[in-house]
Protein backbone atom coordinates (compact mmCIF):
# COMPACT_ATOMS: atom_id res chain seq x y z
CA UNK A 1 0.00 0.00 0.00
CA UNK A 2 1.41 3.33 -1.06
CA UNK A 3 0.86 5.67 1.85
CA UNK A 4 2.20 9.18 1.23
CA UNK A 5 3.89 10.82 4.13
CA UNK A 6 3.02 14.33 5.26
CA UNK A 7 6.05 15.94 3.57
CA UNK A 8 5.12 14.45 0.20
CA UNK A 9 1.50 15.61 0.58
CA UNK A 10 2.66 19.09 1.44
CA UNK A 11 5.02 19.19 -1.57
CA UNK A 12 2.24 18.11 -3.95
CA UNK A 13 -0.16 20.66 -2.48
CA UNK A 14 2.42 23.44 -2.95
CA UNK A 15 2.98 22.39 -6.55
CA UNK A 16 -0.74 22.34 -7.28
CA UNK A 17 -1.19 25.73 -5.61
CA UNK A 18 1.60 27.27 -7.67
CA UNK A 19 0.09 25.79 -10.88
CA UNK A 20 -3.33 27.24 -10.04
CA UNK A 21 -1.77 30.59 -9.10
CA UNK A 22 0.17 30.75 -12.39
CA UNK A 23 -2.99 30.00 -14.33
CA UNK A 24 -5.52 32.18 -12.46
CA UNK A 25 -3.39 34.86 -10.83
CA UNK A 26 -1.47 35.28 -7.61
CA UNK A 27 -3.64 35.31 -4.56
CA UNK A 28 -6.58 33.26 -5.88
CA UNK A 29 -5.63 30.61 -3.34
CA UNK A 30 -5.33 31.81 0.21
CA UNK A 31 -5.13 30.21 3.60
CA UNK A 32 -8.28 30.67 5.64
CA UNK A 33 -7.69 33.50 8.07
CA UNK A 34 -9.84 35.57 10.36
CA UNK A 35 -11.12 38.77 8.67
CA UNK A 36 -8.20 41.17 8.59
CA UNK A 37 -8.63 44.64 10.02
CA UNK A 38 -8.35 47.57 7.63
CA UNK A 39 -4.68 48.44 7.15
CA UNK A 40 -5.46 51.92 5.89
CA UNK A 41 -8.13 54.34 7.00
CA UNK A 42 -11.36 54.08 5.05
CA UNK A 43 -12.14 56.48 2.24
CA UNK A 44 -14.61 59.12 3.46
CA UNK A 45 -17.74 59.47 1.37
CA UNK A 46 -18.19 63.17 2.07
CA UNK A 47 -21.36 62.44 4.02
CA UNK A 48 -20.49 62.08 7.73
CA UNK A 49 -23.78 60.35 8.49
CA UNK A 50 -23.18 57.72 5.84
CA UNK A 51 -19.60 57.23 7.08
CA UNK A 52 -20.97 56.58 10.57
CA UNK A 53 -23.45 53.99 9.28
CA UNK A 54 -20.75 52.13 7.32
CA UNK A 55 -19.04 51.24 10.61
CA UNK A 56 -15.43 51.84 9.51
CA UNK A 57 -15.67 55.58 8.94
CA UNK A 58 -16.12 55.42 5.18
CA UNK A 59 -15.65 53.09 2.24
CA UNK A 60 -13.19 50.27 3.09
CA UNK A 61 -10.12 50.39 0.83
CA UNK A 62 -8.92 47.39 -1.11
CA UNK A 63 -12.41 46.09 -1.79
CA UNK A 64 -15.07 45.94 -4.45
CA UNK A 65 -18.02 48.08 -3.41
CA UNK A 66 -21.33 48.29 -5.19
CA UNK A 67 -23.90 51.07 -5.18
CA UNK A 68 -27.27 50.28 -6.71
CA UNK A 69 -29.99 52.77 -7.54
CA UNK A 70 -32.61 53.75 -10.03
CA UNK A 71 -32.23 57.03 -11.91
CA UNK A 72 -32.25 60.36 -10.00
CA UNK A 73 -31.39 58.75 -6.68
CA UNK A 74 -28.09 60.61 -6.32
CA UNK A 75 -25.84 57.72 -7.39
CA UNK A 76 -23.61 59.79 -9.69
CA UNK A 77 -23.45 62.59 -7.13
CA UNK A 78 -22.44 60.19 -4.38
CA UNK A 79 -19.75 58.64 -6.61
CA UNK A 80 -18.39 62.04 -7.65
CA UNK A 81 -18.29 63.14 -4.01
CA UNK A 82 -16.35 60.01 -3.04
CA UNK A 83 -14.02 60.63 -5.97
CA UNK A 84 -13.45 64.24 -4.90
CA UNK A 85 -12.59 63.05 -1.39
CA UNK A 86 -10.19 60.43 -2.73
CA UNK A 87 -8.40 63.12 -4.74
CA UNK A 88 -8.39 65.29 -1.64
CA UNK A 89 -6.50 62.44 0.09
CA UNK A 90 -3.91 62.51 -2.73
CA UNK A 91 -5.20 59.46 -4.57
CA UNK A 92 -5.19 59.30 -8.35
CA UNK A 93 -8.71 58.39 -9.44
CA UNK A 94 -10.26 56.71 -12.46
CA UNK A 95 -13.80 56.89 -13.80
CA UNK A 96 -14.86 54.16 -16.21
CA UNK A 97 -17.66 55.63 -18.22
CA UNK A 98 -19.45 52.81 -20.04
CA UNK A 99 -22.66 54.77 -20.83
CA UNK A 100 -20.55 57.73 -22.10
CA UNK A 101 -22.45 60.15 -19.86
CA UNK A 102 -19.63 61.61 -17.75
CA UNK A 103 -20.43 65.28 -17.13
CA UNK A 104 -17.18 67.13 -16.48
CA UNK A 105 -18.93 70.35 -15.48
CA UNK A 106 -20.99 68.64 -12.80
CA UNK A 107 -17.90 66.74 -11.63
CA UNK A 108 -16.08 70.04 -11.14
CA UNK A 109 -19.06 71.40 -9.24
CA UNK A 110 -18.75 68.45 -6.81
CA UNK A 111 -15.08 69.23 -6.18
CA UNK A 112 -13.41 66.80 -8.63
CA UNK A 113 -10.00 67.90 -9.96
CA UNK A 114 -10.03 67.03 -13.65
CA UNK A 115 -6.24 67.14 -14.06
CA UNK A 116 -5.92 64.21 -11.64
CA UNK A 117 -8.58 62.07 -13.26
CA UNK A 118 -8.45 59.33 -15.87
CA UNK A 119 -11.74 58.77 -17.70
CA UNK A 120 -12.04 55.52 -19.61
CA UNK A 121 -14.75 56.00 -22.23
CA UNK A 122 -15.44 52.49 -23.38
CA UNK A 123 -17.94 49.72 -22.72
CA UNK A 124 -15.63 46.97 -24.01
CA UNK A 125 -12.85 44.87 -22.49
CA UNK A 126 -13.95 45.93 -19.00
CA UNK A 127 -12.52 42.83 -17.41
CA UNK A 128 -8.99 43.53 -18.67
CA UNK A 129 -9.21 47.27 -18.12
CA UNK A 130 -10.37 46.84 -14.53
CA UNK A 131 -7.80 44.15 -13.72
CA UNK A 132 -4.91 46.14 -15.24
CA UNK A 133 -5.88 49.37 -13.49
CA UNK A 134 -6.52 47.73 -10.13
CA UNK A 135 -3.38 45.61 -10.16
CA UNK A 136 -1.13 48.47 -11.37
CA UNK A 137 -1.22 50.34 -8.01
CA UNK A 138 -1.58 53.44 -10.14
CA UNK A 139 -4.95 54.53 -8.84
CA UNK A 140 -6.47 54.61 -5.38
CA UNK A 141 -10.08 54.62 -6.51
CA UNK A 142 -11.73 53.24 -9.62
CA UNK A 143 -15.37 54.16 -10.16
CA UNK A 144 -16.98 51.96 -12.78
CA UNK A 145 -20.29 53.22 -14.10
CA UNK A 146 -21.97 50.03 -15.34
CA UNK A 147 -25.28 51.62 -16.24
CA UNK A 148 -24.96 50.63 -19.88
CA UNK A 149 -26.85 47.41 -20.65
CA UNK A 150 -24.56 46.80 -23.66
CA UNK A 151 -21.33 46.92 -21.64
CA UNK A 152 -19.14 43.80 -21.72
CA UNK A 153 -19.08 43.09 -18.02
CA UNK A 154 -16.54 40.79 -16.36
CA UNK A 155 -17.56 37.22 -15.59
CA UNK A 156 -17.86 35.87 -12.06
CA UNK A 157 -14.32 34.46 -12.23
CA UNK A 158 -12.93 37.78 -13.41
CA UNK A 159 -14.63 39.57 -10.52
CA UNK A 160 -12.87 37.20 -8.12
CA UNK A 161 -9.51 37.96 -9.76
CA UNK A 162 -10.19 41.69 -9.64
CA UNK A 163 -11.21 41.44 -5.97
CA UNK A 164 -7.96 39.63 -5.17
CA UNK A 165 -5.93 42.27 -7.01
CA UNK A 166 -7.82 45.06 -5.22
CA UNK A 167 -7.11 43.48 -1.84
CA UNK A 168 -3.39 43.22 -2.52
CA UNK A 169 -3.02 46.77 -3.94
CA UNK A 170 -5.43 48.56 -1.54
CA UNK A 171 -7.35 49.91 -4.55
CA UNK A 172 -11.01 50.64 -4.02
CA UNK A 173 -13.35 49.70 -6.84
CA UNK A 174 -16.77 51.33 -6.69
CA UNK A 175 -19.34 49.88 -9.08
CA UNK A 176 -22.42 51.87 -10.00
CA UNK A 177 -25.32 49.89 -11.31
CA UNK A 178 -29.04 50.24 -11.82
CA UNK A 179 -31.39 48.25 -9.63
CA UNK A 180 -33.37 47.21 -12.69
CA UNK A 181 -30.37 45.34 -14.07
CA UNK A 182 -30.25 43.09 -10.98
CA UNK A 183 -26.49 42.79 -11.41
CA UNK A 184 -25.02 41.66 -8.11
CA UNK A 185 -21.28 41.29 -7.89
CA UNK A 186 -20.66 38.45 -5.47
CA UNK A 187 -17.20 39.47 -4.14
CA UNK A 188 -18.43 42.98 -3.25
CA UNK A 189 -17.62 43.77 0.37
CA UNK A 190 -20.26 46.46 0.60
CA UNK A 191 -23.51 47.02 -1.24
CA UNK A 192 -25.49 50.23 -0.91
CA UNK A 193 -29.03 50.68 -2.17
CA UNK A 194 -30.03 54.28 -2.87
CA UNK A 195 -33.59 55.45 -3.22
CA UNK A 196 -34.88 58.92 -3.84
CA UNK A 197 -37.24 60.20 -1.14
CA UNK A 198 -38.12 63.57 -2.63
CA UNK A 199 -36.84 66.60 -4.48
CA UNK A 200 -35.86 69.60 -2.39
CA UNK A 201 -37.37 72.76 -3.77
CA UNK A 202 -36.66 76.39 -3.13
CA UNK A 203 -39.50 78.28 -4.74
CA UNK A 204 -39.92 76.85 -8.22
CA UNK A 205 -36.31 75.70 -8.50
CA UNK A 206 -35.11 72.25 -7.47
CA UNK A 207 -32.24 72.82 -5.05
CA UNK A 208 -31.35 69.22 -4.22
CA UNK A 209 -32.58 65.77 -3.50
CA UNK A 210 -33.25 63.75 -0.36
CA UNK A 211 -32.03 60.19 -0.67
CA UNK A 212 -32.34 57.14 1.54
CA UNK A 213 -29.26 54.92 1.57
CA UNK A 214 -29.57 51.37 2.88
CA UNK A 215 -26.52 49.23 3.60
CA UNK A 216 -27.66 45.94 2.08
CA UNK A 217 -24.36 44.11 2.56
CA UNK A 218 -21.36 44.99 4.69
CA UNK A 219 -18.39 42.78 5.42
CA UNK A 220 -16.95 45.08 8.07
CA UNK A 221 -19.99 46.07 10.16
CA UNK A 222 -23.60 44.98 10.61
CA UNK A 223 -25.69 45.45 7.48
CA UNK A 224 -29.27 46.66 7.31
CA UNK A 225 -28.66 50.19 8.53
CA UNK A 226 -30.30 53.14 6.79
CA UNK A 227 -29.44 56.80 6.56
CA UNK A 228 -31.12 59.73 4.86
CA UNK A 229 -28.86 62.13 2.99
CA UNK A 230 -29.58 65.60 1.72
CA UNK A 231 -27.72 66.23 -1.51
CA UNK A 232 -27.72 69.89 -2.52
CA UNK A 233 -27.08 70.76 -6.14
CA UNK A 234 -25.64 74.21 -5.71
CA UNK A 235 -22.61 73.36 -3.53
CA UNK A 236 -19.18 73.79 -5.08
CA UNK A 237 -16.42 71.79 -3.39
CA UNK A 238 -15.95 72.16 0.37
CA UNK A 239 -19.26 71.65 2.02
CA UNK A 240 -21.13 68.56 1.06
CA UNK A 241 -23.47 67.46 3.80
CA UNK A 242 -25.96 70.21 4.52
Amino acid at each position, binding site marked *: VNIMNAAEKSRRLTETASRVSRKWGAGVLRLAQPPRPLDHPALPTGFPRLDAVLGVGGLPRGNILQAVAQGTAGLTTLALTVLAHAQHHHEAATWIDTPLTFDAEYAVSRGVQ*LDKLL*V*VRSANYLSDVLYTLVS*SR*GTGLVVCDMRNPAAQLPTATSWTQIATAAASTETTLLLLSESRANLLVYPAALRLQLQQERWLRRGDAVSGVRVQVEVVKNRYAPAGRCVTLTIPFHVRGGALDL
Partner: protein
Amino acid sequence: VSRIIVAAWLPFFNAATYRTHHQIPDEQPLLIATSRMVAACDARAAKAGVLPRMPTRQARILCPSAVVISPDKTLEETALQSRLTALAAITPLLEYEEMGDPKRIDPMQAGVFTFDLETLRSAEARKLAKHMRDQLHKLSPAYGMGLAGSKFTAFAAATQGKDLLTITDASAFLAPLPIGLLPLDAAWERRLRLLGLTTLGQFAALPLDAVYRQFGKRGLFLRQLAAGFDLRAVKPFQPQLVEQVCQTLDYPVRQRAVFDALLTALASDLSARLQQRGLMGRTLRLALTGENGKRRERRLTMQREVSGVVFMDKALRVLVEAFQPFGEGITAIDLTLTDLVPFAGYQLDLFDHRGAQWERLTQAVEKLSARYGRDAFTRPVERDRTARLIERRYGFQPFLMT
Protein backbone atom coordinates in the same frame (compact mmCIF):
# COMPACT_ATOMS: atom_id res chain seq x y z
CA VAL B 1 -32.28 46.96 45.42
CA SER B 2 -34.34 48.54 42.66
CA ARG B 3 -33.47 51.67 40.75
CA ILE B 4 -35.07 55.02 41.45
CA ILE B 5 -36.09 57.04 38.44
CA VAL B 6 -37.55 60.52 38.65
CA ALA B 7 -39.40 62.02 35.68
CA ALA B 8 -40.46 65.63 35.36
CA TRP B 9 -43.19 66.48 32.86
CA LEU B 10 -43.32 70.11 31.75
CA PRO B 11 -46.28 71.02 29.51
CA PHE B 12 -45.78 73.82 26.96
CA PHE B 13 -42.07 73.68 27.62
CA ASN B 14 -40.96 75.36 24.38
CA ALA B 15 -43.34 78.28 24.82
CA ALA B 16 -42.02 78.77 28.37
CA THR B 17 -38.49 79.07 26.96
CA TYR B 18 -39.54 81.83 24.55
CA ARG B 19 -41.59 83.60 27.24
CA THR B 20 -38.58 83.76 29.55
CA HIS B 21 -36.20 84.85 26.81
CA HIS B 22 -38.43 87.59 25.39
CA GLN B 23 -39.79 88.57 28.84
CA ILE B 24 -43.44 88.31 27.84
CA PRO B 25 -45.94 88.77 30.68
CA ASP B 26 -47.63 85.57 31.94
CA GLU B 27 -51.16 86.77 31.14
CA GLN B 28 -50.33 87.30 27.43
CA PRO B 29 -51.07 84.26 25.15
CA LEU B 30 -48.07 83.24 23.08
CA LEU B 31 -47.67 81.66 19.63
CA ILE B 32 -44.37 80.42 18.23
CA ALA B 33 -45.11 80.48 14.52
CA THR B 34 -43.74 81.16 11.07
CA SER B 35 -45.85 83.16 8.64
CA ARG B 36 -47.50 79.88 7.60
CA MET B 37 -47.60 77.41 10.46
CA VAL B 38 -47.71 77.26 14.25
CA ALA B 39 -44.71 75.49 15.78
CA ALA B 40 -45.75 75.74 19.45
CA CYS B 41 -48.04 77.71 21.74
CA ASP B 42 -48.65 78.26 25.44
CA ALA B 43 -51.47 76.99 27.66
CA ARG B 44 -53.67 80.04 27.10
CA ALA B 45 -53.47 79.78 23.31
CA ALA B 46 -54.05 76.01 23.54
CA LYS B 47 -57.18 76.68 25.61
CA ALA B 48 -58.43 78.90 22.79
CA GLY B 49 -58.10 75.92 20.42
CA VAL B 50 -54.65 76.48 18.93
CA LEU B 51 -52.67 73.35 18.06
CA PRO B 52 -49.16 72.86 16.70
CA ARG B 53 -48.96 72.64 12.87
CA MET B 54 -52.14 74.68 12.56
CA PRO B 55 -52.05 77.48 9.92
CA THR B 56 -50.91 80.70 11.59
CA ARG B 57 -53.83 82.58 10.08
CA GLN B 58 -56.32 80.24 11.76
CA ALA B 59 -54.43 80.46 15.06
CA ARG B 60 -54.54 84.26 14.97
CA ILE B 61 -58.32 84.14 14.48
CA LEU B 62 -58.74 81.71 17.39
CA CYS B 63 -56.48 83.72 19.67
CA PRO B 64 -56.30 87.32 18.42
CA SER B 65 -54.56 88.71 21.50
CA ALA B 66 -51.59 86.33 21.22
CA VAL B 67 -48.04 87.57 20.79
CA VAL B 68 -46.43 85.84 17.77
CA ILE B 69 -42.72 85.03 17.80
CA SER B 70 -40.72 83.38 14.99
CA PRO B 71 -39.26 79.98 15.85
CA ASP B 72 -35.58 80.10 16.72
CA LYS B 73 -33.89 76.69 16.83
CA THR B 74 -30.65 78.19 18.13
CA LEU B 75 -32.42 79.76 21.08
CA GLU B 76 -34.23 76.48 21.86
CA GLU B 77 -31.05 74.42 21.67
CA THR B 78 -28.97 76.89 23.66
CA ALA B 79 -31.62 77.19 26.38
CA LEU B 80 -32.00 73.42 26.61
CA GLN B 81 -28.26 72.84 26.76
CA SER B 82 -27.84 75.39 29.56
CA ARG B 83 -30.73 73.80 31.51
CA LEU B 84 -29.36 70.31 31.08
CA THR B 85 -25.93 71.52 32.16
CA ALA B 86 -27.45 73.09 35.30
CA LEU B 87 -29.50 69.96 36.10
CA ALA B 88 -26.52 67.67 35.46
CA ALA B 89 -25.07 69.03 38.70
CA ILE B 90 -27.69 66.87 40.49
CA THR B 91 -26.90 63.75 38.48
CA PRO B 92 -25.23 63.24 35.09
CA LEU B 93 -27.72 60.41 34.42
CA LEU B 94 -30.15 62.81 32.88
CA GLU B 95 -32.19 62.68 29.68
CA TYR B 96 -34.48 65.09 27.90
CA GLU B 97 -37.05 64.15 25.32
CA GLU B 98 -40.01 65.75 23.70
CA MET B 99 -43.18 63.77 24.20
CA GLY B 100 -44.11 60.91 21.94
CA ASP B 101 -43.63 60.33 18.24
CA PRO B 102 -42.48 63.40 16.25
CA LYS B 103 -45.20 62.74 13.64
CA ARG B 104 -47.93 63.00 16.28
CA ILE B 105 -49.30 66.25 17.56
CA ASP B 106 -49.01 66.45 21.33
CA PRO B 107 -51.63 68.96 22.49
CA MET B 108 -49.69 69.49 25.74
CA GLN B 109 -46.36 70.06 23.87
CA ALA B 110 -44.55 68.69 26.88
CA GLY B 111 -40.88 68.18 27.49
CA VAL B 112 -39.82 65.37 29.82
CA PHE B 113 -36.66 65.30 31.94
CA THR B 114 -35.73 61.89 33.33
CA PHE B 115 -33.20 61.44 36.15
CA ASP B 116 -31.70 58.17 37.28
CA LEU B 117 -30.95 58.29 41.00
CA GLU B 118 -29.62 54.73 40.85
CA THR B 119 -29.98 52.97 44.23
CA LEU B 120 -30.38 55.99 46.49
CA ARG B 121 -32.38 55.40 49.65
CA SER B 122 -36.04 56.27 49.31
CA ALA B 123 -36.07 59.15 51.82
CA GLU B 124 -33.00 60.76 50.27
CA ALA B 125 -34.40 60.26 46.76
CA ARG B 126 -37.57 62.12 47.76
CA LYS B 127 -35.48 64.92 49.21
CA LEU B 128 -33.47 65.20 46.00
CA ALA B 129 -36.65 65.06 43.91
CA LYS B 130 -38.00 68.03 45.85
CA HIS B 131 -34.81 69.92 45.06
CA MET B 132 -35.29 69.09 41.37
CA ARG B 133 -38.89 70.25 41.60
CA ASP B 134 -37.70 73.65 42.86
CA GLN B 135 -35.26 73.88 39.93
CA LEU B 136 -37.88 72.86 37.36
CA HIS B 137 -40.52 75.17 38.78
CA LYS B 138 -38.36 78.04 37.48
CA LEU B 139 -38.55 76.61 33.95
CA SER B 140 -42.28 76.07 33.77
CA PRO B 141 -45.02 77.06 36.21
CA ALA B 142 -47.06 73.90 35.46
CA TYR B 143 -45.37 70.57 35.90
CA GLY B 144 -45.78 67.04 37.17
CA MET B 145 -43.25 64.77 38.82
CA GLY B 146 -43.17 61.03 39.25
CA LEU B 147 -40.87 58.73 41.19
CA ALA B 148 -40.78 55.02 40.31
CA GLY B 149 -38.54 52.05 39.62
CA SER B 150 -38.50 52.40 35.82
CA LYS B 151 -38.48 55.10 33.15
CA PHE B 152 -41.93 54.51 31.71
CA THR B 153 -43.69 54.24 35.09
CA ALA B 154 -41.98 57.42 36.32
CA PHE B 155 -43.01 59.19 33.13
CA ALA B 156 -46.62 57.99 33.43
CA ALA B 157 -46.69 59.18 37.05
CA ALA B 158 -45.32 62.58 36.04
CA THR B 159 -48.02 63.07 33.38
CA GLN B 160 -50.63 63.00 36.18
CA GLY B 161 -49.52 66.57 36.97
CA LYS B 162 -49.03 65.93 40.69
CA ASP B 163 -46.37 67.63 42.79
CA LEU B 164 -44.44 64.39 43.40
CA LEU B 165 -46.21 61.08 42.87
CA THR B 166 -44.36 58.04 44.21
CA ILE B 167 -45.25 54.67 42.68
CA THR B 168 -44.53 51.44 44.49
CA ASP B 169 -46.83 49.02 42.60
CA ALA B 170 -46.18 49.83 38.94
CA SER B 171 -48.62 47.42 37.27
CA ALA B 172 -51.54 48.44 39.50
CA PHE B 173 -50.81 52.12 38.90
CA LEU B 174 -50.47 51.77 35.12
CA ALA B 175 -53.51 49.52 34.56
CA PRO B 176 -56.23 52.22 34.38
CA LEU B 177 -54.13 54.75 32.45
CA PRO B 178 -54.90 55.44 28.74
CA ILE B 179 -52.98 53.48 26.12
CA GLY B 180 -51.91 56.73 24.44
CA LEU B 181 -49.14 57.07 27.04
CA LEU B 182 -47.15 54.38 25.27
CA PRO B 183 -44.65 55.58 22.62
CA LEU B 184 -46.98 54.81 19.69
CA ASP B 185 -47.53 56.53 16.40
CA ALA B 186 -51.06 57.48 15.35
CA ALA B 187 -51.58 54.35 13.21
CA TRP B 188 -50.65 52.04 16.09
CA GLU B 189 -52.87 53.87 18.53
CA ARG B 190 -55.80 53.69 16.11
CA ARG B 191 -55.20 49.98 15.60
CA LEU B 192 -55.20 49.31 19.35
CA ARG B 193 -58.35 51.34 19.85
CA LEU B 194 -60.09 49.44 17.04
CA LEU B 195 -59.21 46.23 18.87
CA GLY B 196 -60.96 47.68 21.92
CA LEU B 197 -57.78 48.26 23.89
CA THR B 198 -58.05 51.60 25.61
CA THR B 199 -56.07 51.14 28.83
CA LEU B 200 -52.57 49.94 29.58
CA GLY B 201 -54.00 47.22 31.84
CA GLN B 202 -56.01 45.72 28.97
CA PHE B 203 -52.92 45.64 26.76
CA ALA B 204 -50.73 44.16 29.51
CA ALA B 205 -53.31 41.39 30.10
CA LEU B 206 -53.05 40.08 26.50
CA PRO B 207 -51.23 36.75 26.05
CA LEU B 208 -47.65 37.14 24.87
CA ASP B 209 -48.01 35.00 21.73
CA ALA B 210 -51.13 36.90 20.64
CA VAL B 211 -49.30 40.22 21.01
CA TYR B 212 -46.33 38.85 19.05
CA ARG B 213 -48.55 37.58 16.24
CA GLN B 214 -50.42 40.87 15.95
CA PHE B 215 -47.68 43.42 16.62
CA GLY B 216 -44.31 41.66 16.35
CA LYS B 217 -41.29 42.49 18.52
CA ARG B 218 -42.29 46.11 18.96
CA GLY B 219 -45.60 44.91 20.39
CA LEU B 220 -43.83 42.74 22.96
CA PHE B 221 -41.73 45.71 24.04
CA LEU B 222 -44.82 47.89 24.42
CA ARG B 223 -46.60 45.17 26.38
CA GLN B 224 -43.65 45.06 28.78
CA LEU B 225 -43.89 48.82 29.27
CA ALA B 226 -47.64 48.56 29.88
CA ALA B 227 -47.02 45.87 32.51
CA GLY B 228 -44.50 48.08 34.32
CA PHE B 229 -41.29 46.36 33.14
CA ASP B 230 -38.91 48.82 31.59
CA LEU B 231 -35.21 48.00 31.56
CA ARG B 232 -34.19 50.98 29.43
CA ALA B 233 -31.34 52.91 31.00
CA VAL B 234 -31.22 56.69 31.31
CA LYS B 235 -28.46 57.81 28.97
CA PRO B 236 -25.86 60.01 30.64
CA PHE B 237 -25.95 63.64 29.56
CA GLN B 238 -22.92 64.82 27.60
CA PRO B 239 -22.66 68.56 27.29
CA GLN B 240 -22.46 69.65 23.66
CA LEU B 241 -19.43 71.75 22.88
CA VAL B 242 -20.51 74.87 21.06
CA GLU B 243 -18.92 78.21 20.31
CA GLN B 244 -21.16 81.11 19.37
CA VAL B 245 -20.78 84.76 18.42
CA CYS B 246 -23.67 87.16 17.88
CA GLN B 247 -23.89 90.74 16.72
CA THR B 248 -26.96 92.90 16.99
CA LEU B 249 -26.68 95.95 14.77
CA ASP B 250 -27.80 99.47 15.70
CA TYR B 251 -29.08 100.12 12.19
CA PRO B 252 -30.06 97.66 9.42
CA VAL B 253 -27.21 96.75 7.09
CA ARG B 254 -28.11 96.81 3.40
CA GLN B 255 -24.72 97.07 1.70
CA ARG B 256 -23.01 93.82 0.83
CA ALA B 257 -19.51 95.22 1.48
CA VAL B 258 -20.43 96.22 5.04
CA PHE B 259 -22.11 92.86 5.60
CA ASP B 260 -19.03 90.99 4.34
CA ALA B 261 -16.77 93.03 6.62
CA LEU B 262 -19.02 92.19 9.58
CA LEU B 263 -18.90 88.51 8.73
CA THR B 264 -15.11 88.55 8.52
CA ALA B 265 -14.94 90.27 11.91
CA LEU B 266 -17.27 87.66 13.42
CA ALA B 267 -15.26 84.81 11.84
CA SER B 268 -12.09 86.31 13.26
CA ASP B 269 -13.68 86.59 16.72
CA LEU B 270 -14.94 83.01 16.58
CA SER B 271 -11.55 81.74 15.40
CA ALA B 272 -9.73 83.56 18.22
CA ARG B 273 -12.08 82.03 20.81
CA LEU B 274 -11.63 78.55 19.40
CA GLN B 275 -7.86 78.82 19.34
CA GLN B 276 -7.90 80.05 22.92
CA ARG B 277 -9.86 76.93 23.93
CA GLY B 278 -7.70 74.66 21.73
CA LEU B 279 -10.72 73.44 19.77
CA MET B 280 -11.85 73.26 16.19
CA GLY B 281 -15.31 72.64 14.78
CA ARG B 282 -17.03 71.20 11.78
CA THR B 283 -20.63 72.42 11.54
CA LEU B 284 -21.16 76.12 11.00
CA ARG B 285 -24.57 77.72 11.43
CA LEU B 286 -25.36 81.24 10.30
CA ALA B 287 -28.61 82.92 11.33
CA LEU B 288 -29.60 86.32 9.95
CA THR B 289 -32.44 88.45 11.28
CA GLY B 290 -34.13 90.87 8.90
CA GLU B 291 -35.69 94.27 9.61
CA ASN B 292 -39.13 92.73 10.03
CA GLY B 293 -37.78 90.41 12.73
CA LYS B 294 -37.82 87.38 10.45
CA ARG B 295 -34.96 85.03 11.13
CA ARG B 296 -33.39 82.77 8.50
CA GLU B 297 -30.83 80.12 9.17
CA ARG B 298 -28.45 77.99 7.09
CA ARG B 299 -26.12 75.23 8.23
CA LEU B 300 -22.97 73.85 6.64
CA THR B 301 -20.91 70.79 7.52
CA MET B 302 -17.33 71.06 6.31
CA GLN B 303 -15.07 68.30 5.08
CA ARG B 304 -12.83 68.59 8.10
CA GLU B 305 -12.75 70.47 11.38
CA VAL B 306 -11.43 74.02 11.16
CA SER B 307 -10.47 76.78 13.53
CA GLY B 308 -8.58 79.18 11.23
CA VAL B 309 -10.17 82.44 10.18
CA VAL B 310 -9.42 81.87 6.46
CA PHE B 311 -11.33 78.57 6.33
CA MET B 312 -14.13 79.95 8.45
CA ASP B 313 -14.45 83.00 6.22
CA LYS B 314 -14.53 80.80 3.11
CA ALA B 315 -17.24 78.60 4.59
CA LEU B 316 -19.24 81.70 5.54
CA ARG B 317 -19.17 82.91 1.92
CA VAL B 318 -20.63 79.55 0.82
CA LEU B 319 -23.30 79.85 3.50
CA VAL B 320 -24.24 83.40 2.52
CA GLU B 321 -24.69 82.29 -1.10
CA ALA B 322 -27.16 79.66 0.12
CA PHE B 323 -29.52 82.37 1.39
CA GLN B 324 -32.14 83.74 -0.95
CA PRO B 325 -31.86 87.52 -1.50
CA PHE B 326 -33.10 89.29 1.61
CA GLY B 327 -34.56 92.42 -0.01
CA GLU B 328 -34.29 94.20 3.35
CA GLY B 329 -31.69 95.24 5.88
CA ILE B 330 -30.09 92.80 8.30
CA THR B 331 -30.34 93.65 11.97
CA ALA B 332 -28.62 90.72 13.67
CA ILE B 333 -26.04 88.07 12.78
CA ASP B 334 -25.65 84.91 14.78
CA LEU B 335 -22.77 82.53 14.09
CA THR B 336 -22.46 79.14 15.81
CA LEU B 337 -19.87 76.41 15.41
CA THR B 338 -20.73 72.94 16.71
CA ASP B 339 -19.20 69.44 16.64
CA LEU B 340 -16.13 70.81 18.41
CA VAL B 341 -13.12 68.56 18.89
CA PRO B 342 -9.65 69.15 20.37
CA PHE B 343 -7.25 70.84 18.00
CA ALA B 344 -5.10 68.59 15.80
CA GLY B 345 -2.72 69.62 13.04
CA TYR B 346 -2.81 68.22 9.51
CA GLN B 347 -0.50 68.24 6.54
CA LEU B 348 -1.00 71.21 4.26
CA ASP B 349 -1.47 70.43 0.59
CA LEU B 350 1.57 72.35 -0.67
CA PHE B 351 3.00 69.98 -3.24
CA ASP B 352 1.89 68.06 -6.29
CA HIS B 353 1.35 64.50 -5.10
CA ARG B 354 1.27 62.91 -8.54
CA GLY B 355 4.45 60.99 -7.82
CA ALA B 356 5.03 57.26 -8.12
CA GLN B 357 1.32 56.46 -8.21
CA TRP B 358 0.78 58.71 -11.21
CA GLU B 359 3.73 57.11 -13.00
CA ARG B 360 2.28 53.65 -12.39
CA LEU B 361 -1.09 54.82 -13.71
CA THR B 362 0.55 56.21 -16.85
CA GLN B 363 2.34 52.89 -17.41
CA ALA B 364 -0.94 50.99 -17.00
CA VAL B 365 -2.67 53.33 -19.48
CA GLU B 366 0.22 52.88 -21.92
CA LYS B 367 -0.30 49.10 -21.78
CA LEU B 368 -4.07 49.43 -22.23
CA SER B 369 -3.70 51.99 -25.02
CA ALA B 370 -1.39 49.62 -26.89
CA ARG B 371 -4.06 46.93 -26.71
CA TYR B 372 -7.26 48.90 -27.30
CA GLY B 373 -6.21 52.27 -28.78
CA ARG B 374 -5.62 55.66 -27.17
CA ASP B 375 -9.05 57.20 -27.70
CA ALA B 376 -10.80 55.37 -24.88
CA PHE B 377 -8.34 56.59 -22.20
CA THR B 378 -8.98 60.26 -21.74
CA ARG B 379 -8.69 63.21 -19.44
CA PRO B 380 -11.50 65.78 -19.27
CA VAL B 381 -10.35 69.32 -20.09
CA GLU B 382 -12.02 72.66 -19.90
CA ARG B 383 -12.54 74.20 -23.36
CA ASP B 384 -14.81 77.21 -23.13
CA ARG B 385 -16.56 77.79 -19.84
CA THR B 386 -18.75 80.53 -21.26
CA ALA B 387 -20.07 78.44 -24.18
CA ARG B 388 -23.85 78.24 -24.30
CA LEU B 389 -23.90 74.59 -25.29
CA ILE B 390 -22.90 72.40 -22.34
CA GLU B 391 -21.02 69.92 -24.52
CA ARG B 392 -18.70 72.68 -25.74
CA ARG B 393 -17.66 73.76 -22.26
CA TYR B 394 -15.64 70.63 -21.54
CA GLY B 395 -14.06 68.02 -23.76
CA PHE B 396 -11.85 64.94 -23.55
CA GLN B 397 -8.28 64.59 -24.73
CA PRO B 398 -6.19 61.39 -24.83
CA PHE B 399 -4.69 60.75 -21.42
CA LEU B 400 -1.21 60.04 -22.77
CA MET B 401 -0.97 63.48 -24.43
CA THR B 402 -0.52 64.93 -20.98
